[in-house]
């Protein structure tokens, strides 16, 4: 399974939750598969999805699911200690770990080589870290929601992208409809 297959499978779970989605093709895929006002699409600023989601989870009670990538987490590795030390039990970080920089041409990341993001999250102090295969993502994600405990999921999947159009929605529109969903 590639990332878009995973997103299709978990779309029914995501639909009911606040979702912060990583820059580039992940956001394009989620937007094309199941656009929702409860999705915050990042149009720029690689690496900050996990941080935006943490700030959101710490500031209001609804569950927050962040869809991130291995390359983006590697870009902002300082996020893992911050997450571990600021526990928000409504926060789920789903790292779609396909071992490549998907949006830029599938160049390999270090996470696909010697580096384990699962072990790095554990070493940072994150208490509930679950590595799973792509096929099990839906079950693991639902269990994380049910557990009501901060969870880092490292979903190992194949490299590759679905062909989806860029998001043309204005960023202020994305943000405004997202905030209305947060406050609803």
């Amino acid at each position, binding site marked *: 399974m590639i990332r878009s297959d995973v997103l299709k499978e978990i779309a029914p779970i995501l639909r009911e939750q606040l979702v*912060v989605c990583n820059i580039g093709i992940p956001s394009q895929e989620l937007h094309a598969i199941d656009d929702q006002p409860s999705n*915050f699409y*990042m*149009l*720029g*600023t690689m*690496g*900050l*999805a*996990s*941080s*935006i*989601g*943490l*700030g*959101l*989870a*710490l*500031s*209001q009670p609804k569950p927050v699911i962040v869809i991130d990538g291995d390359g983006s987490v590697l870009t*902002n590795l*300082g*996020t893992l*200690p*911050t997450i571990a030390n*600021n526990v928000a039990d409504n926060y789920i970080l789903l790292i779609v770990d396909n071992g490549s920089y998907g949006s830029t041409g599938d160049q390999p990341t270090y996470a696909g080589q010697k580096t384990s993001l699962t072990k790095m999250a554990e070493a940072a102090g994150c208490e509930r870290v679950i590595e799973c295969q792509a096929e099990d993502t839906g079950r693991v994600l639902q269990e994380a929601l049910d557990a009501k405990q901060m969870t880092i999921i490292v979903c190992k999947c194949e490299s590759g992208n679905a062909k989806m159009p860029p998001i043309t929605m204005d*960023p*202020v529109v*994305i*943000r405004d409809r*997202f*905030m209305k969903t*947060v*406050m609803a």
Partner: protein
Amino acid sequence: MNIDKKITDDLVANDISFVTTVPCKQLAGVIAEIDAHDSIYHIPSNKEDEGMGLCAGAWMGGKRPAIIMQNTAIGVTINTLATLIQYYRMPLPMLISYRGELREPIACQVEMAVHTKALLAQLNIPTYHFHNQADVEELDAILKYTFMCNKPVAILTDANFWGGYGDQ
């Protein structure tokens, strides 16, 4: 006047309840004051762009955020300011230690000081410079202005404002 308490009181009076910090020696007192304050969630960040991501999320979650950092971080955060804070039109007060100004003992700090205002101007970020302690009286109005216009706003605080750096 206890400058650290005055700044913290202004933040609280403007309903700012989520503050991320990357430390600077000049800012140590205000960071300690914020950390001790019950109505502020203080979340230290490892890098300033990470901190701006936290603030963006907090604001969308209904809290008013602020970031406290050194001016060297302007070099770190230009992309985040342009493509997250400005692009999505979010308010962000930035209380910045303006290192590399008069009474600075570390020469390297001057290298970013000479770029600081030019970079902020290039980004069209409203910028205020506190040089004397009395300048802090404008902080309350600056915070109100920031949340009125939904923009990042820079408050540069130099060594003279803090009563010197290393020569107090």
